[in-house]
Each structure stands twice: as C-alpha cells, then as structure tokens.
C-alpha cells in the first residue's frame, strides 16, 4: 500500500517537474528554434548534391514535425503570414521539386550512357557499310545483282544513320535538363554536371562523328529528292538542338581550350554538312544526265546549273548543221525527253523549288532555251500546211462554181 502511494507520488512529482519545465520555456525560443530548423532543412534541400543526400533530409522533415507538433497552436499564431502546417507543406514541396530534379537528371544520365553504347555500335556498323558501298560504287560495270546489293546496303546505311542521328540528338538534348535550360547563367555545379555527362557519353566526339558520317554518306551515294528531303528535315532538327545546347556548351567549356576548339569544329562541320546536302542534288542531277550520255560540266548551284544547261543547248543549236541530223536528234531526245522531262522536271524541280535552290525564273529560262533548241532541230512546217489549206479551199470553190450553172438549167426546165 505504501509502495503504491510512493509510486503515485513519484509520478505526480515527475509530471509536475516536466510541466514546470515546459511552462518555463520561452515561446520566442520555440518559435525561433522552429524557424532555424526549417531554414536549415530548406538549405539542405537546396544544397543536396545527390538523390541519396536529399533522401536523408526527408527524415529530418518528419522529425521536425514530430518535435514541434505540441507547439502547433503557438506556431500557428506566430509564424505570420504562414502557420505550422503551411510551413511544413512548403518544405515538403521544396523537397519534392528537388527530388524531381534529381530523378530527371538520373534518367538523363542513364539515357546518355545507354545511348552512348548504342551509338558506338552503330558507328562501327555504319563504317562497315560505308566501306562496302564505296567498294561497290567503284565497280564500273555493275550487274543487276551488284546494283541490288548496293541499293540494299545504301538503304541499310541510311536507316542506321537516321537511327544514330536520333540517338546523338537525344544525347545532346539530355546534356541539359529543362530546369537548367531556363537559367540565364549556369552555376558552377550545373557546369560540372554537364561536363561529367558529356564525358560519360563522349557527346562532342559523337556529334562530330555523326556529322562526318552524314557528309561521307552523301559523298558516296546518289540520293533521290525524297531521301534528301528527309535528310534536310533531320539536319534541321539536329542543327536546332545543337545551336541551343552548343551556345551553352561554349559557356561551360570557356576555360577548356581543347573542348572549345571541338565545339568550333562541330560548327564548321554543320556548315559542311549543309553544303553537302545542297551539293548532293546538283551532283545527282548531273549523274542523271550522264547516265543518258549527256556529259555536262560540274555545277553546284542554280546559276551554274542554268549556265551549264543553256551553254550546252547553245552549242547543240550551233552544231545542228555540223552534226548529222540523227546525232543531233539523239542528243535532244536524251537530254530533253529522257532526262529533263522524265526526271529533272517531275522529280527534282519540286525539291529544288521547295527548298529555294532554284527560282521559277531560272527554270523558265532553261525551258525557253529547250523550246528554241526544239524549233531549230524540228523546224515548223507552216508553209506546207498553208499550201494544203489553199488547195482544199480552191477545190471547194471549184466544186461549188461547177454545181451552180447546173442548178439554173434545172430551174429553167421546171419553169
């Protein structure tokens, strides 16, 4: 009985002591302590370098809530304009936003590494295909089997290059998470992150290689307007991504001479690639003329193209009386019917006009010259038609005149 009384008294004394201590605490200190801890956690969230480091803060938020839950009323009144719950909600929100940043960065880093290995594989495969195509192209008289093989290889290579281009574009794109792009000035940490990602994915080297391979592909193959349109589309997308990220990379590598040099090289490679695509149309058209035994001088823009064609036609017009009629007509048929009207005008002209590689006026000038050539080679027979017409008219008049007197006699008889 005494023991029970003693325990009860002890508990009452203990509780009294506890409540005394609670009541002797300064409210101001409680509020300030809460604010300080809130600020500390907020800074930890902001300064976290990794997802693991950030996750440690999560426990601290829970601890903070637990620790100050008993002072909720005081904090609600004191944390003007916020309150206890709003302050914790805001902290949780900061945590989630930062967590999302790290998850995005993590995903992008994984993407860069995965893409890097896939790009490496495609680089090797594309190189093999390019060598094979070059070998087959070198064969002068290709049989049907060789041509088919070549076409298949070119199709394979085109598909591979397209696939690799997409991956490299993604790699370049992955270097900068959306949040980083919005910043006017990158922090030292941001720059370090980009440098680390660039090194992991060997991004600059891959960009250089991709552009070089694309240019080489254009050099060893003859492409149709449809292929070139696709290439132009992809080239434009690639250039757009590079223009944006490249500018930021110049800032990131401002202290690194070697990398800055690589970025400049990439810029010049893009220019080379753009020119190669433009040149591809002109050289393929020249090949098409050549396949029809029309050997033209080289041309690499619309003005040269027009000049070369008009000069060729002028020579042919001049030579009409020199060359045999059959030879002149054969050349005309090969040039106009088999090349110009069969391929250049229906296939290439829409591409050239759409991409502003030629003007309507330049095209009209060439076609006017073709008409002139045709007139010289096939002179108009208008005088024969005139004689025929005169003979027909004369015959009709003669018949009519002969029939009239007969009618008068018949009328007299009737009367």
């Amino acid at each position: 009985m005494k023991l029970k009384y003693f325990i009860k008294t002890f508990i009452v004394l203990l509780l009294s002591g506890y409540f005394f201590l609670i009541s002797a605490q300064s409210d101001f200190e409680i509020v300030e302590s809460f604010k300080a801890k809130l600020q500390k956690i907020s800074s930890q969230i902001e300064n976290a370098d990794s997802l693991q480091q950030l996750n440690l803060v999560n426990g601290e938020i829970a601890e903070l809530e637990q620790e100050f839950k008993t002072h909720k009323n005081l904090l609600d009144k004191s944390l003007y304009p916020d309150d206890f719950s709003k302050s914790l909600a805001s902290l949780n929100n900061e945590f989630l936003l930062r967590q999302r940043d790290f998850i995005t960065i993590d995903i992008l880093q994984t993407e860069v590494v995965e893409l890097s290995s896939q790009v490496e594989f495609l680089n090797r495969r594309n190189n093999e295909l390019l060598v094979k195509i070059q070998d087959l192209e070198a064969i002068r008289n290709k049989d049907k089997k060789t041509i088919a093989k070549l076409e298949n290889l070119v199709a394979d290579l085109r598909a591979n290059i397209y696939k690799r281009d997409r991956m490299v574009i993604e790699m370049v794109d992955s270097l900068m998470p959306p949040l980083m792009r919005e910043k006017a000035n990158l922090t030292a940490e941001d720059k370090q992150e980009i440098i680390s990602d660039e090194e992991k994915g060997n991004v600059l080297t891959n960009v250089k290689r991709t552009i070089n391979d694309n240019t080489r592909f254009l050099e060893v193959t003859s492409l149709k307007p449809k292929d070139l349109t696709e290439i132009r589309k992809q080239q434009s997308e690639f250039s757009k991504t590079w223009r944006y990220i490249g500018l930021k990379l110049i800032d990131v590598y401002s202290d690194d001479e070697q990398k800055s040099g690589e970025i400049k090289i990439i810029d010049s490679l893009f220019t080379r690639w753009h020119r190669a695509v433009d040149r591809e149309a002109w050289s393929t058209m020249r090949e098409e003329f050549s396949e029809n035994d029309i050997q033209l001088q080289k041309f690499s823009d619309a003005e040269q193209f027009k000049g070369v064609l008009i000069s060729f036609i002028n020579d042919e017009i001049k030579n009409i009386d020199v060359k045999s009629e059959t030879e002149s007509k054969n050349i005309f048929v090969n040039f106009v019917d088999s090349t110009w009207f069969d391929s250049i005008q229906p296939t290439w002209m829409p591409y050239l006009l759409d991409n502003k590689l030629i003007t309507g006026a330049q095209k009209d000038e060439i076609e006017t010259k073709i008409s002139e050539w045709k007139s010289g080679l096939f002179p108009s027979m208008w005088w024969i038609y005139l004689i025929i017409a005169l003979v027909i008219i004369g015959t009709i008049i003669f018949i009519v005149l002969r029939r009239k007197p007969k009618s008068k006699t018949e009328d007299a008889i009737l009367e």
Partner: protein
Amino acid sequence: MRIKLMILLLAAVSFNGCSTLVLKPSDFSWPVESVLKPDKNGMVEEDRHSISFNTRGLYYEEFKDSSAATGSELRIICDKMGYYFLTSKNFKNVYVFEKNDGSLVLEKKILISENGIKKPAFNQRSNYIQLVDDGKTYNLTHEGIEGDEK
C-alpha cells in the same frame, strides 16, 4: 425643489452627450514576444505589429544611462488588454506601458530582482504575461506580479 429637478435633468442630458463608444471584447495580445535591438539613436521598430518608439528614456530609468540601449536586446510583448511589457537582460524591473496620445506612458514598474534579470523571456498566457527568468516564472499583469514567485 424645481431647481433641483432642473439641475438633475441637465446633468442627465450632459452625461448622455459625453458617453463614449466602446467596442468589446477586444484582444490586443501578441502571440509571442519580440526581441528588438535599439539602433544608435535608441529607436526600436517592430515590423509585424508596426510599432516603433525610442528606448533611451527606459534605459535611463533602469540604469541612469541612456547609452546602455546600444547593443542590448529589448524584449516586448503586448497583453490582451493592450499593455506593453518591456524588459531586458540585467534589468531589475519589468516596465508596463500603455499607449497614449502618440507615446508610451509608464503604467507600472514591477520589481523582479534586485540582482537583475539574467535570462528574461515573456510568454503570452490567457490572463497574464509570463516572465521566465532562468527557470523561474512570474505571472505579470499591468498591476504587478500575480500571486507569489514560483
């Protein structure tokens, strides 16, 4: 008798005209004390409750030295009735002020310790202001200490 009745009526009418509009109940209490640092002129400013005043007179009253304000921390809290309780480290007293005509007028000077208050802190409680000093607590109203020292 008539004269007395006239005087009574006149007084009633006069008192009626002088009656003041009172808004009740009112609560002026601050949830938590503010700790303010006087500037070089002795001015303190409390942003949340938009109050500012000069503290030199207070420090002169306490230490007979108005320059003691510089570098010290003044603790202030307002109770439910609108009385301001002020004290600082090494003060012997808590000063109770009320607002009057653009100034704070001393209502009560409450002696806490002849040796000076070591670690003062005010807490807002429902019917009084609690002063905590190094574990000891005092329940204060504008009239003085409520009850005994704990």
